[in-house]
């Protein structure tokens, strides 16, 4: 399979990395994420997610950013291929 699996950031597991494909949200969300450097084609790594639908923490450009779960569900990521 040439393309990696596509999932939302919310569904990524801690420790997984991938590339942001698109942001399925309005202008406001795209702008806010843009300010923090979360833009399509950017590589991110998920560090953790909180229990009970809490925010997820990711690493982008060596900086850590906490993203609410709702927003994280709108960020589509293509997972890196992990050798079997």
């Amino acid at each position, binding site marked *: 399979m040439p393309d990696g699996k596509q999932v939302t950031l919310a569904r990524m597991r*801690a420790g997984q990395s991938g590339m942001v494909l698109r942001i399925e949200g309005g202008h406001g969300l795209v*702008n*806010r*994420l*843009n*300010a*923090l*450097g979360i*833009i399509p084609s950017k590589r991110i790594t998920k*560090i*953790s*997610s*909180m*229990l*009970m*639908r*809490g*925010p997820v*923490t990711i690493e*982008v*450009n*060596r*900086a*850590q*950013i*906490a*993203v*609410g*779960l*709702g*927003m994280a569900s709108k960020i589509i990521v293509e997972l890196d291929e992990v050798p079997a």
Partner: protein
Amino acid sequence: MRKIVLIGNPNVGKSVVFTRLTGINVVVGNYPGKTVEYKRGHMKLGGETVEVFDAPGTYTLDPISDAEEVAVRMLSSADTVINVVDATNLERNLYLTLQLSERKIPMIIALNMWDDTKHRGIMIDLDKLRELLGVPVISTVAVTGEGIKELVGNIPRAISARNPARSRDERWTTIGSIIEQVQRVTHRHHTWRERLADASVKPITGGIIALVVLAMAFLVIRFIGESLIGYVLEPLFNSLWAPVLSKLSGLLGGSGLLHNIIIGKLIGGEVDFVQSFGLLSSGLYVPFAMVLPYVLSFYLVLGLLEDAGYLPRLAVLMDTLMHRLGLHGYAIIPTLLGLGCNVPAILATRILESKRERFIAATLISIAIPCAALQAMIFGLVGAHGGQYVVIVYGTLFAVWIILGIILRHVVRGFTPELLIEIPPYRLPLWRAVLQKLWMRAYGFLKEAVPIILGAVLIINVLYFVGIFDMFANFTAPVITNLLGLPKEAVTAVVIGFLRKDVALGMLAPLALSAKQLVVGSVVLAMFFPCIATFVILLRELGIVNMLKSAGIMISAALITGGLLNLIL
């Protein structure tokens, strides 16, 4: 006077650069029309004195929050801009840099955190970066002072690159190409600080770390506060000030209106700093010996937590709980500030985006978060009857915070946006910056509190003398005695609570209340109504209609909680 504005992303060490440039004479101001604080100081440049402004941190010049809007507005009055850039996160920081380079303001870049690049395996070609950006770039390590002299020396060489305006995508493309040419990153192992950073945003380890940090913070605050009181201020007042007052008391004849105003009532023939209630006794003792020590220790610990970068992690951990209260995790920061003073706390609710959140956060803070002054008095007076009573007061306020938050979440309309924040790496705080902040906060407390405390003591004595309190006490006696189980004289404390809550609680001291009555009294005082300073800020922040709603919630919540406590205890 020429104006230099420091601008940069949040958490890039901008304030430390500012501290290095300006030294001690720093003023914290409120931006006109906005409740956003900024710092202003002066520095020598050549033979000339110039003004330096520390703008609020912003990621872009297309502002999302009020703080960012202030940063953008300050820019328009700047003669020179120092763009502080985090060298370890060049890519994201350059977005703002590129936007700045499209303006016609002379700019110079302080590439800060330069030392971190080395152990993070990042190599940056400074000459190439200068060439590509077309402005001076100076590497700095603000915490140690490295590069600051060179930065100052290069300020006159600041120029505008006068880049044409670009679109968002064009900027990111340009940044990609700049990064390609100037930066090399090699792989390296995680440092212990990074491991700790990761652990503190994971559910289980993060929870444990939060408990340890908060418990330590509490113990340190108590230890420093108690030590200052027990070993420094109490001895000072007792050995130096008490003899002066008893002489003065003799000169004034030992009683009468003037004596009561200046010295206060003698308790058992002696001046009692807590109970006498004169200008020179309680009027000075309460702010300086009871409250100031806790204000100092609280703000010291808070400043350390802020500068170490812990608070955003607490916001992540608390996010789920805070959503139950109609807030998001970031609201924990104003709430913590409220434990120092409600005024900056309510100002800080500005970091929350929606009106609904601000209303809920401000209301919850003014009801359930006791300020350091009030807490100092709770520890002093209620604690004298035993620690368990202090626990009851705090437990009650915490329960009120949760229950009222849940109610407000369901009742207040509007929406609460989600958390989206950067979590800076852990950093060792710079003592100079921590102490500068502590000094500004402590000075702010004294400037605000002392005149109001003295005024309150004066008014109380005069009102006592003309008998207004007796009238008022008789009038409200049914509520106070039947519902709350307090003596009718306690109503004066509730009224004075509007001026200063610490003074008000002090007024309960001479009433010889039982431990239970003190608990009820403390809780009711904490919740009933904000002090005048908080009231003014609430009015400005919420507007009159919402302020009235908020006040209605406060009064009913205070009476219900006080009544329940009276029944249960």
